[in-house]
């Protein structure tokens, strides 16, 4: 069996590795960073995600999480630079799990970068019931933790990359130790999202400092997505999945098999295709309102506003039904499909319709590309595993 997976987010990786596990020959087509690369390192189970229904975590997913640098921690409590504490089912190893800490003081590493004000964050976290219940008290640490002045103007992810360097991480650890020596005793240290771009450096830092150290989640420019990409590339290579960079255009199905065509003319022949191309955020579903396509005052024909970015005979819909052509020459009303008008907006639900994971002959779909699937990490991972397995079995 030869399986081609389109998409390199969490669903695509999951599908590729699951198909490989079934003994299929797997190649993966990698486009551009999507939703997974924009993620923050927290895996599901936030109170507001719990309501959306989480997938159970099986042995395959547990293994995959570990491979990708995530820690399985069913009751994790993570800090976010937006000033909240949130729960998670698992998390990027670089993040500090507050649920693992004894009561006491948590030192907050200050920096002058965009969006990170240690004193303000400490005040914000200290006011939360979750911190009070655990007797955790956050306080900004004294000292300077940016080694070079150019770092003040850098994004958090760029500084994170600098901490991949062992010597630099050692300098940082020394600075933290020196600071801890000058402040009241701490049970842990929370840092800006700084701890490595290639791999999570939290464990190495913790060892050198002698206390649990880890990041808080950043609202933007988080290095978590970069760490995922690096871990993904390592694990795909280790599993013997070949990867190709390019944009998938279409899937053609014939008696003997399927052919995936890439932009630029390249073609890959296979037995089955898994489309894990993402929802609207990932670019798998393209929002294309009629008036944006046609430059005439009136478009020649009405249509609904969504299509798949890969033409593969997948039916686009929501709530188990194909999207209907609206009775408007201009497509759907934008305010009816997008947040915040609809709490569960069409933008977030629209996708390919499938039975199990089969969406068309020889075409399987996974992750956010599936209609009505909660847009959570575990749901994407589980659906990827199912699609990969089904594709490999044929």
């Amino acid at each position, binding site marked *: 069996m030869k399986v081609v997976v389109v998409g390199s987010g969490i669903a695509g990786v999951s599908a590729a590795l699951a198909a490989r596990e079934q003994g299929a020959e797997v190649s993966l087509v990698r486009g551009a960073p999507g939703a997974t690369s924009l993620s923050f390192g927290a895996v599901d189970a936030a109170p*507001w995600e719990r309501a959306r229904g989480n997938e159970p975590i099986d042995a395959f997913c547990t293994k995959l999480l570990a491979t990708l640098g995530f820690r399985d921690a069913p009751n994790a409590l993570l800090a976010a630079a937006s000033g*909240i504490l*949130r729960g998670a089912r698992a998390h990027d190893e670089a993040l500090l799990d507050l649920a693992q800490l004894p009561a006491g003081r948590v030192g907050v590493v200050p920096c002058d970068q*965009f969006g990170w004000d240690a004193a303000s964050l400490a005040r*914000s976290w200290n006011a939360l*019931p979750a911190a009070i219940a655990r007797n955790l008290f956050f306080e900004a640490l004294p000292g300077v933790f940016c080694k070079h002045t150019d770092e003040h103007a850098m994004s958090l992810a760029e500084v994170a990359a600098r901490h991949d360097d062992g010597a630099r991480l050692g300098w940082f650890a020394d600075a933290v130790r020196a600071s801890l020596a000058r402040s009241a005793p701490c049970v842990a240290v929370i840092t800006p999202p700084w701890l490595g771009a290639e791999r999570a450096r939290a464990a190495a830092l913790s060892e050198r400092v002698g206390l649990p150290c880890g990041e808080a989640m950043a609202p933007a420019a988080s290095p978590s997505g970069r760490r995922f990409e690096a871990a993904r590339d390592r694990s795909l290579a280790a599993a013997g999945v070949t990867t190709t960079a390019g944009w998938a255009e279409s899937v053609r199905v014939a008696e003997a098999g399927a052919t995936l065509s890439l932009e630029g003319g390249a073609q890959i022949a296979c037995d089955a295709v898994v489309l894990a191309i993402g929802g609207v955020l990932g670019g798998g579903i393209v*929002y294309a309102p009629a008036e944006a396509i046609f430059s005439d*005052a009136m478009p020649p024909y009405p249509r609904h506003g969504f299509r798949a970015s890969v033409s593969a005979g997948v039916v686009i819909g929501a709530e188990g039904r194909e999207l209907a052509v609206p009775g408007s020459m*201009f497509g759907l009303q934008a305010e009816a499909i997008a947040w915040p008008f609809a709490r569960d*907006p069409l933008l977030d639900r629209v996708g390919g319709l499938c039975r199990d994971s089969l969406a068309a002959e020889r075409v399987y779909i996974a992750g956010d590309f599936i209609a009505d699937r909660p847009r959570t990490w575990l749901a994407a991972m589980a659906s990827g595993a199912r699609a990969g397995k089904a594709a490999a079995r044929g």
Partner: protein
Amino acid sequence: MGFRDATPSSHRHASDASARTDEARYDVAVIGGGVNGTGTARDLALRGRKVVLFERNDFAFGASGNNSGMIHGGPRYMLKSPQVTEESCRDSGFIQQIAPFLLFRIPFIVPVKDGPRGRMMLELVDAYFKAYDKYQPLKRGEPHTRIDASEMARLEPGIVGPYVGAITFDEWGIDGPRLCILNAVDAEEHGARLYNHTTVESVAPGDDGYLITARDTLTGERVRARAAHVVNATGAWAPVTAALGKLPTTRVLVRPGKGIHVTYDRRVSNYAVLAEAIDGREIFLMPWQNMSMIGTTDDDYYGDLDHVPSTSEEVRYLVQGAARVFPSIREARATGTYVGVRPTLYGFGVMEDALSREHAIIDHAADGAPGMYSMIGGKLASYRQFSQEMADAIAPSVPCTTHEKWLPGGDRTPDALALAETHAITPVAARRIVYRHGSRALRVLARVDRCPREREVVCACEPVLAAEVLHVVEREHARTVGDVARRTRLGMGSCGGMRCAARCGQIVADALGIAPAAGRAQAREFLERQAELRVVAMGPDQARQEALLLAQMRATLGEAEAGTGVDEGES
């Protein structure tokens, strides 16, 4: 309405039910913090009158902050009410003198279609603007020019179609919210007391004047103040306000006209391009500050003035019209919409566009309420004149000086590049600060010298530094993330506040000493309102952005519904 009596200040506490008596007796209470209210407050304060101003939402929350951002002469009004054009032009000239840093020139182009009567039409437009030239010197405007089709194609390549030629002329752009804030701040510096987010609940006749009771909508605190005169400068809300003073609403009728603008992520044209909508109305595509916009609609509005929606139908109406002249606008990236409601003078049986843009002062002495006035109608461009007329009625013995005294920061415009160098900030940030604050940019930047942390770029789109956020909180009465956005344009760029709102909420909460959760709630509220205004203009790019915003809100801000988050409640 039953209100508690004033609690002695020694017993005052910050619970919802506490009442605060503003012990001072004022000469004038101005209700409404739009451009006419703040302008009147400033004028009277400069005349030495003791003034108190109440604003239900924030300064410039309504039409004053959501207009086309021009103090234009209104060539459109020249035929029907030339006095509106002349007044607007003259006042525009005065505004330039008192706040030179706040104005920027906007060149306009009026393309004329080719066709059987194209030549003649060009002659007519030419003649029309020849008449307008007469008013231009009043506002340091340039006389119009007439250009042929090939020259037009060179100057504005985005205009596509068979055109016989065009006319160009110029107008002045201005940041409406800044104009209001500066008037308010100047009034305060001349002794006025300002209350924003404070809604007036009743105006009752008392001993020698009126007793005004108001409630702070953010803290719940009550404020009571006494004033000899009351000015109702609440724009489209004017009838609502009049009813609070037990005045017959029929005396202060306005015909609220809703207008929306569609904004784009960058300047897409060199000129402001005049176009025609499907119903023949005049609309325009205009470069403004660091963006472009299409404006505007004019529709009767009967809904809630505190929460005015814009709709995708209005967006389509504007884009359709603009694209007929400037087709590439369909490929440009819309970043959202904004919406305001004009307080147009009442008329029945008239099309919206044909309503008069004049203004009127109603003396309620005739309604048995001496000393009470309502200001109705008006335009941004002639706010100063209108305010002067109002102040003249109340304090006729003291001459008006609002046309000669600088607004705060107007005394000189510092060199932005030099400031960027001396304060080690980016030249773009320096230019934007100078644009918004004039010479007071020095005060904003003195903060980064004292506290280098305040160099932090909070909003990268604009950009806005932490120092400016703190400045507007401490000096300009910004009390919420939305207030900061109004004063600095934070979060108004292409990301719609996604990157900056949460951080801004932290800064505001810290600076005001309110709960961090309140700062986050403000950020969420701001993002939701932004999303509401953005989605109606949503194109393919925005769809992905909305999805990203949704994902980010879920991951790091939580959702606003009560009881769902770890983040709920403070202790």
